[in-house]
């Protein structure tokens, strides 16, 4: 099977995956042990308000009709509104407020993990079975085994008393002063002026504040390190194996025999090939980030999507839970497709049977 046919088959397969994932969501939200209306109405709500909400949610219809309505609404991105957390506010507007914080957090955690994990792994792979290799490998394994929630509170405790640990250097007043807990300010960039050309709006006036950017990065940094910890350990491990595998391969031997300099061999022949197996690891991170952000966001007080989902689940805002779940499904399925695409482009050797 050609590579592109394989890719298109995967693409086609993602349609039933989204549909079935949505069905599972429907079963949990509508047929689960909690009645969606009860949480919205509250214990004091009378029968009248109950009936009204049931009608607005379409819960008085037969189950199959509800199912069809739910699927059609979701697939046409008619996401509905929140009922308990911020009653009446549409899911789109909630997403506009909460999603950027999670994206900012996710962006930094992926970046930090890549910037620390891959170089460390490559270093360990280039110097196998030395003391520094053992130190790096063992550190990576322990680092990966740490539960996020525990790591988060330990890091918070250390940073709170950073004067004691880092020779009088206080994290809180380092650079820009801030609180340890809270959401990062995202207003460091804004568009002040728009010009409309035909139907497209183009921003012309841009507001940018460097100090707010620094503050924002500093605010999100500890949370991002915690969130990226598991991925960092994975990247290190896989990076080490990948380098070891390529360095022992025949073409590196040939290059050595040709008399190429070590530096050229490492940069041109080893690193580029060792990056291929890291692609699924990096895309897989996105899975973990979406799920794991709940804990990190709750502990670090960042009002992101994970926090929103947690609140919605705890307070019984089931319509909102359903819509958020749909967004997550779409995100993960698209990341999967991206991964397959990257594989198709990057690694022509693999035969797909």
């Amino acid at each position, binding site marked *: 099977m050609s590579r592109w046919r394989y890719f298109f088959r995967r693409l086609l397969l993602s349609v039933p*995956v989204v549909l079935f994932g949505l069905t599972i969501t429907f079963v949990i939200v509508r047929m689960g042990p909690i009645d969606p209306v009860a949480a919205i109405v509250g214990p004091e709500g009378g029968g009248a308000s109950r009936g009204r909400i049931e009608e607005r949610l379409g819960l008085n219809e037969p189950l199959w009709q509800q199912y069809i309505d739910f699927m059609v609404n979701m697939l046409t991105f008619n996401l509905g509104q929140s009922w308990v957390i911020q009653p009446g506010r549409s899911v789109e507007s909630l997403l506009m407020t909460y999603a950027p914080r999670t994206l900012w957090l996710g962006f930094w955690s992926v970046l930090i993990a890549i910037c620390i994990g891959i170089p460390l792994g490559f270093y360990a792979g280039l110097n196998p079975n030395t003391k520094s290799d053992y130190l790096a490998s063992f550190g990576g394994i322990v680092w990966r*085994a*740490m539960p996020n929630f525990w790591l988060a509170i330990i890091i918070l405790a250390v940073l709170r008393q950073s004067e004691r640990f880092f020779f009088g250097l206080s994290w809180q007043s380092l650079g820009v002063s801030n609180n340890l807990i809270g959401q990062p300010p995202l207003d460091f960039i804004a568009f002040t002026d728009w010009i409309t050309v035909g139907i497209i709006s183009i921003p012309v006036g841009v507001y940018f504040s460097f100090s707010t950017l620094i503050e924002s990065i500093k605010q999100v940094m500890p949370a991002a390190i915690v969130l990226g910890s598991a991925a960092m350990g994975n990247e290190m491990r896989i990076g080490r194996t990948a380098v070891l595998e390529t360095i022992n391969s025949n073409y590196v031997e040939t290059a050595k025999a040709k008399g190429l300099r070590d530096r050229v061999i490492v940069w041109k022949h080893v690193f580029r090939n060792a990056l291929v197996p890291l692609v699924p690891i990096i895309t897989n991170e996105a899975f973990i980030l979406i799920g794991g952000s709940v804990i990190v966001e709750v502990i670090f007080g960042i009002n992101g999507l994970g926090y929103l989902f947690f609140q919605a*689940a705890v307070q019984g805002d089931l319509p909102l839970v359903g819509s958020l779940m749909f967004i997550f499904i779409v995100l993960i399925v698209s990341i999967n497709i991206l991964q397959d695409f990257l594989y198709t482009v990057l690694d022509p050797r693999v035969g797909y049977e």
Partner: protein
Amino acid sequence: MSMNEFDDKTLRERIADNPQPALAWLAGVLVLVALELGRLASGLVQVGETTRFALGGIASVPGSVEESVASSLGEIAGLVAFGLTVLVLLGIAAILVKWLLIPWTLVDRLGIEASTGVKDIIERVIVTGLLVVAAALVVLTPVGGVLEMAVSALTRGVEWVSSLPTITSRELISNEGYQLPDGSWEGTFLGLSPAVAWALRVAVVYAYALVWLAWLWRGYETFREHYREADWTPRDDSINRLRNHYWGMFGLIVVIMFLVMALWAPAVSPATAEANLYQPYEHEFEYYGDDGVESITHGEANSDSRSQGGDTNVGVMSYDNHDRFHPFGTNTDGKDLFTFLAYGAQVSLVIGLLATVLMAVIATALALITAYYKGVTDLVTIVASDSIISLPRFLLVLLLSVLFMQANHPVAEIYDGGLLLALIFAGTGWPLLWRSVRGPALQVSEQEWIDAAKSYGQSPAATMRKHMAPYIAGYMLIYASLSLGGVIIGVAALSFLGFGVQAPTPEWGRAVYEGQSYIATSSWHIATLPGILVVLLVTGFNALGDGIRDAIDPQSEASDGAAGAAGGGG
């Protein structure tokens, strides 16, 4: 010891020929069992109670099905549904009974001629029929009463045995006593200080467990030397590789340490969970106060031994005001942290193992079926597993446990939510395991011996069980031990958020939650120590997985780090 290459004797015959080494080994086992007979018996009682409870739950299923069907479709439909459910349940039981208890085939004995597949079905129908008769006898006739009496007599016997003294019992090496003004200790083992007495008891427990392990290993060696047909099997090489794999051995030792801690939780903890955690106001102990020896309940004493930072703190390796020793200090409400963590290890391991075993069973069954039949079954399983993976696992687990707990669903009350968590983790985790073993399963299904088995007329189930499953089992072991760490972290994370195992059942994540605000104070131990235990245990399982992988398949490399990590997210 085999005389010729094709020795047809069974193991039983080989032992009968040369009984001496086997009897020597068996004598050792009996001595070891006798030393801990009491604890073993109480464990049996617990297992029996759990089984009874589970059977009761299953037995109530047909009734509830009848009720719900009768309310919507009428009485007769309800009765039919009742009968069908009973038949389905007994059918499942029949498969188990046939597999476990009936080693020969009834069909052959009765002389029924049919093709292999039909024979299997007839066999199952016969066993189900026998079970129906047995169930009817128990429910409708006095046989049930007789059975009930026999069971309760047996239970009483085992309970009497469980009151026998054991070498690791708290009474034998007691660490609970009080200090007289002259500094000597009263009530403890040999007048030692409680700290030393406790350490001694822990040492005895671990020594006993170690002797057991050594003896089991010796048993394996005896078997290998005297009773095994072949002088060498590939498994010998695997075991030797594991023995020389330092990282894997480290993992094995860590896992065994935790298993022993969980199994002997009542023995290694300084106070019993009953007295210190569950009903502190109903258990008393003696201490030496201002007016000589007084007695006080654990609950009242606990309120004096709280660890809440500053001066209100009972730290690591210290005594509280009432002469109780706390190896790991106390937690925020004055309960002993080591007791909490030891019983917490029990909870974590039970949930983790239960979830992983369920996951592994589902994943293996599906891998075998999809690899054998391929085509549409494979495609359907791909879509189903991809769909479950496309829901963020931790969020799904969180959502499900929140929903079940807030609705006070009956499942959420068993084991304070532990069973529910195990089911949720198993239900959301099997796709990852299935993905990992699908490759090896497909590989083995292409082998010639599968074709041979098919053309020979062996039934599909037997082919899968005998010729495919052993090949996957090794891989399953690796990935299962990797994903166990993920489940343990996940359960701890849920408990940290307040939706895992509910109080008063101890769970590591809840200890971290309680201690998080005191982490910068003198009571740092409450949140720090459980975290270190989680890291140690998860690292241990990962190391063990690595070791098993290298032992089974030295050529393979770390191909799938995601299987272990993806379970986490906490």
